[in-house]
Structures are given as structure tokens and as C-alpha cells.
């Protein structure tokens, strides 16, 4: 029997499948109209202390409107699944300012960076302060936490993280395979309290289509206790039913449907619009100075009533046309 390592990292959520089953037993399944505003969805479904997860991939196909609304409604003490979180993590960290603490716990596989764009000065400030509890994972391991939860089992085994500090600072546990005697890492299930996923289209009940890479969202949608869908557009139930093999998320997972055109802005939405790199650079730039950052957040988030107003501040329809041209590889207007 080889010596087995158990990660020292904190387990922020309960991996017990029977506790999750008791919740899912009561989750409504009926086909009812779930269309509401982002403001109402956040007010109704996201509470202080909840553990959240964001769909998409950091700055691609993200629910920016929900993230802004969480700031506006000043939620506190949240947990977050940092599964290649980039701009989404940057927005969450904006809630940790001047002694306020929106983000309290994070399962980190990729945080504080914006990939090729560089690191977020404010997210680093927050994460270097020690005020946020951190548990480390690899991207695949964190995806497998959703996979285990979807499957309704307390863990799934994988073969990465072995031998590293990433494992030691995770909450994974080494186990021995009963068939081969090989060492594996048991990855505990993660059932987020609330997730938000941006999709290309869905019906009023929440049957969704994603037209591109799904990242971890097929799983994330299924393992989340509550789920907010933002969508580029709402389509009819008849349209969904005409090609049921295009449905990626079924309505019985969904609690709210919010129609938010350009909802992934300033991020990329495949086939719809490219990312606004200038605006993303502006975020990274203003974060360097706290006064500038406060003013920026006030202007773009706290002083506007909703996401449409944010889009108007950022250039409105003209800007969106440019980003669409860029996405479709057309000559820009």
C-alpha cells in the first residue's frame, strides 16, 4: 500500500450526493415561463454567502450582466469557482475594495490573469492580501468537480495533480485503484449554489443552445443548485423541439432566463461579436490606481441601472457593429 497524500486545502462545499439529491428532489421541473430581468434574477437567486460559478471561459461567452448586477446589489461573503476565470474574476474582485468583501473563498485553477493580456492589478492586490481563502486545482480537476456532481457521486478519479504542490493545496485525496493498484486522485464533487451561463439562444423555459465550445457548461448547468441563463435571444419552444439534438442545457436545470443581447461584452461571443480589447485594457489600466478604479466602477457599474446602459456608455450599437464585423472577419466599418 503506497503512502497516500490528502490535500490540505479547504472544502468550501459539501460533496455528499445524498444532500444534493435531497435538494434536487425539490427543484421544480415544470415547463413554466422563467423570463425575468437580470436584476430580479440576482435579487431572487443569489444570496450573501452563496458559492457561485461562472460559465464560459473567463472572457468568452460570460454573463457580464449578472456579474455587474452582483456588484450593484452588493452581495457579500461569496465563494467562487475559479475555473479559468479572467474578466469574470476581475469583476468579482472589484467587490473587494475599501474594506468590503464580496469574495471570501475561491477554488483557484486560473485566477488573476487575463491570459495573453496580462495580470489584473486589483485581483492580485486582493489575492495577495490574504483576505480570500484559496484552494488550488488544475483546470481539469475543477471541471471534474462539476463532473462528479453532475454524476451524483461524491468523487471521480483522475491522474493529474499527482506529485505536486497543486495537489497538496487542493482538497483532493489520493486513493489506490482496486483493479490496478495505481495511485489516483479522488476529486470531490462541487455543487455550486448558483451558476450563471450565457448562451446563444434558449426558449422561455430555459432549453438552451450553445453554438461553439461548451467548456464546462454542459456539466456546470446540471450540477448547480440554481441556474441563471442569460441569452443573446429567446427563441420559441417549437424551434427548440424541431432539433432536440442541438439542446445543450435542458429546462429542468434552469431557474431564470434573462434576454441580454451582447451579454458577453466586453468578452467574445462565438459567431456573434469579438471581444472589446480596448475596453479590457482600460480595466487593467485603471486598476493600477485605486482612485481611478473607484471612479471607473462608479461610472460603468454602480451609477448605471442596468447592462444596456453599460453598453451605451461603451459605444452602443456602433461599437457592437464593429465587434460583430471583427468576429465575422469582415472589414471593420
Amino acid at each position: 500500500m503506497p503512502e497516500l497524500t490528502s490535500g490540505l486545502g479547504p472544502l468550501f462545499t459539501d460533496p455528499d450526493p445524498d444532500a444534493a439529491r435531497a435538494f434536487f428532489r425539490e427543484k421544480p421541473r415544470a415547463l413554466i415561463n422563467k423570463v425575468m430581468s437580470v436584476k430580479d434574477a440576482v435579487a431572487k437567486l443569489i444570496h450573501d454567502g452563496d458559492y457561485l460559478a461562472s460559465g464560459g471561459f473567463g472572457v468568452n461567452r460570460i454573463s457580464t450582466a449578472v456579474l455587474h448586477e452582483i456588484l450593484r446589489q452588493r452581495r457579500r461573503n461569496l465563494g467562487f469557482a475559479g475555473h479559468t476565470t479572467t474578466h469574470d474574476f476581475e469583476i468579482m474582485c472589484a467587490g473587494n475594495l475599501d474594506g468590503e468583501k464580496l469574495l471570501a473563498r475561491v477554488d483557484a485553477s486560473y485566477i488573476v490573469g487575463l491570459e495573453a493580456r496580462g495580470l489584473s492589478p486589483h485581483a492580485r492586490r486582493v489575492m495577495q492580501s490574504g483576505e480570500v481563502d484559496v484552494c488550488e486545482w488544475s483546470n481539469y480537476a475543477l471541471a471534474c468537480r462539476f463532473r462528479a456532481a453532475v454524476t451524483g457521486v461524491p468523487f471521480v478519479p483522475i491522474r493529474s495533480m499527482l506529485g505536486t504542490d497543486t495537489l497538496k493545496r487542493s482538497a483532493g485525496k489520493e486513493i489506490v485503484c482496486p483493479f490496478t493498484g495505481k495511485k489516483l486522485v479522488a476529486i470531490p464533487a462541487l455543487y455550486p449554489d448558483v451558476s450563471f451561463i450565457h448562451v446563444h439562444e434558449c426558449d422561455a423555459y430555459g432549453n438552451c443552445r450553445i453554438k461553439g465550445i461548451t467548456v464546462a457548461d454542459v456539466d456546470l448547468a446540471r450540477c448547480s443548485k440554481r441556474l441563471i441563463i442569460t441569452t443573446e435571444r429567446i427563441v420559441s419552444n417549437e424551434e427548440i423541439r424541431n432539433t432536440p439534438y442541438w439542446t445543450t442545457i435542458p429546462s429542468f436545470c434552469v431557474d431564470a432566463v434573462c434576454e441580454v443581447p451582447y451579454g458577453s461584452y466586453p468578452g467574445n461571443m462565438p459567431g456573434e461579436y469579438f471581444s472589446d480589447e480596448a475596453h479590457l485594457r482600460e480595466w487593467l489600466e485603471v486598476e493600477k490606481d485605486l482612485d481611478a478604479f473607484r471612479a471607473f466602477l462608479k461610472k460603468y457599474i454602480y451609477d448605471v441601472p442596468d447592462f444596456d446602459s453599460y453598453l451605451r456608455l461603451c459605444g452602443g450599437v456602433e461599437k457592437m457593429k464593429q465587434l460583430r464585423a471583427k468576429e465575422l472577419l469582415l472589414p471593420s466599418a
Partner: protein
Amino acid sequence: MPDYNAMELMICIAARLLEDGSTLGVGTGAPCAAAMLAQKTHAPSLFVAFEAGGLAPLLPSMPISVGDSRTFYKGLMATSMCDIMEACQRGMVDYTFLGGAQIDMYGNLNSTVIGPHGKPAVRFPGSGGANDFASLCWRTMVLTQHDKRRFVAKLDFLTSPGFLTGPGAREAAGLPKDTGPYKVITDLAVMGFHAESKRMQVESLHPGVTFEQVQANTGFELLKAARVTDSEPPRPNELRILRDEVDPYRYVIGR
């Protein structure tokens, strides 16, 4: 003065290591440029896999994100992170390119923190998909600048596995058999790993660089391969394709 810069040289060397018909897990930046260059020279059917789900795109330009729409533009498949990582775990992905804030003599990488984990002096992004690629792909390649701050005797945090503590350590840890670091390509040299000791060894020196110079920029003792060769400079057609087709806006090679 050569008619190319260090990054162009690194990308050309990296591209040549990729065989046609092989599979590669990559991120954005220089690794992606190397993959595109390989496709446009000797490896037209190199399968590029992005961890967010993009498989084998016809890249119209360099992606900004591992998950942006370029990563599956006219791809063979747009799928999920698990599907890509499962392919790695199953043994279907041959190569990966990684980077990191620190690397040690066994090719272990740190991309998590400098200083104590609970309250670090510097917080980096963390593993992302790097630990998975380094654990599960057959051969890990590293593309990085060469200096003593990066090439260290002891990592602050071991994010992604190289050969861990040396011979047999990957197998003892439970990692898949016969995997591990393959090449480290820097602005000074190309390094591999000694077959028995699993320690980093210089295999080729870039034009005008001496072994002593590489050692002076490295925080641990480097081995010398039995035969240390001269790195082949970029060929004219490589440079032309890299500059005109792969990175015309010089996002990566421009520095």
C-alpha cells in the same frame, strides 16, 4: 547582427519539433505561433487542441484567449474542456507547450505563487490547464526566457510536474508512464533531460551563445549533453511565413 530576434528563433526551433500528424495541446502566444508555423511548413495535419474545447481549427489569426472563437474557427470539432483533457489522459495527445514563472532542474514549473501560499508576495494565475497537460500529454516542452529568476534551484510552489524529484519519481507519484519534460527552449539554448538522472542538460546553443553564458543565467547546475550542437537559425521560408502569415501584427514576435 542576425536578421531575426530571439523569439523568432525560439518559435522556429519549437515548430520544427512538432511532427506532422501529431497532436498538440497549446495555449496562446508563442506556442500557438509555433504550431501555426509548423502547420504552414512541414506539418499540415498537426492537430492543435485548446483546453477550452477547440480542436484543429484553421486559425485565421493568433487567438487572444485559449477559449476565444478563433480556437475553433473552421475546426474539426468544438467540444468541452473535459473532452480535450480526457483525450490527454487517454494518451491521445503527443505534445504540449508550457511556460511558468519558475522552472527547476527537473523541469518542474511554478505558475502559482512567490512567497507563502496563504499570503503570497506575488500571486500568479495558478495551474490553469498546465498541470493537466504536464501530467497527461506524452511530451512537455517549455518556451521561456532564460534568466536566474526563472531557472531556480528550488521552486516556491510546484504547480506542474516535470520529473519531480528525479528518476522514477513521476511513476512513484502515480503519473502516467513514459511521460514528462522533453525540451526547454529559451532565448539562449535548447535543453533536454538526461536519460538516467532526469536532470536538465544543454543540447544546443543558439548562435553566439556559450555554455558558460547559459550556466551563468541558470540558478542550478546544468548538465551538458554528450554532443552539444549549434541551434539552427530560422530558415528564410520560416521567417517569411512567421512574419507574413502567422503573426503579421507581431503580437508575439514583435517584442
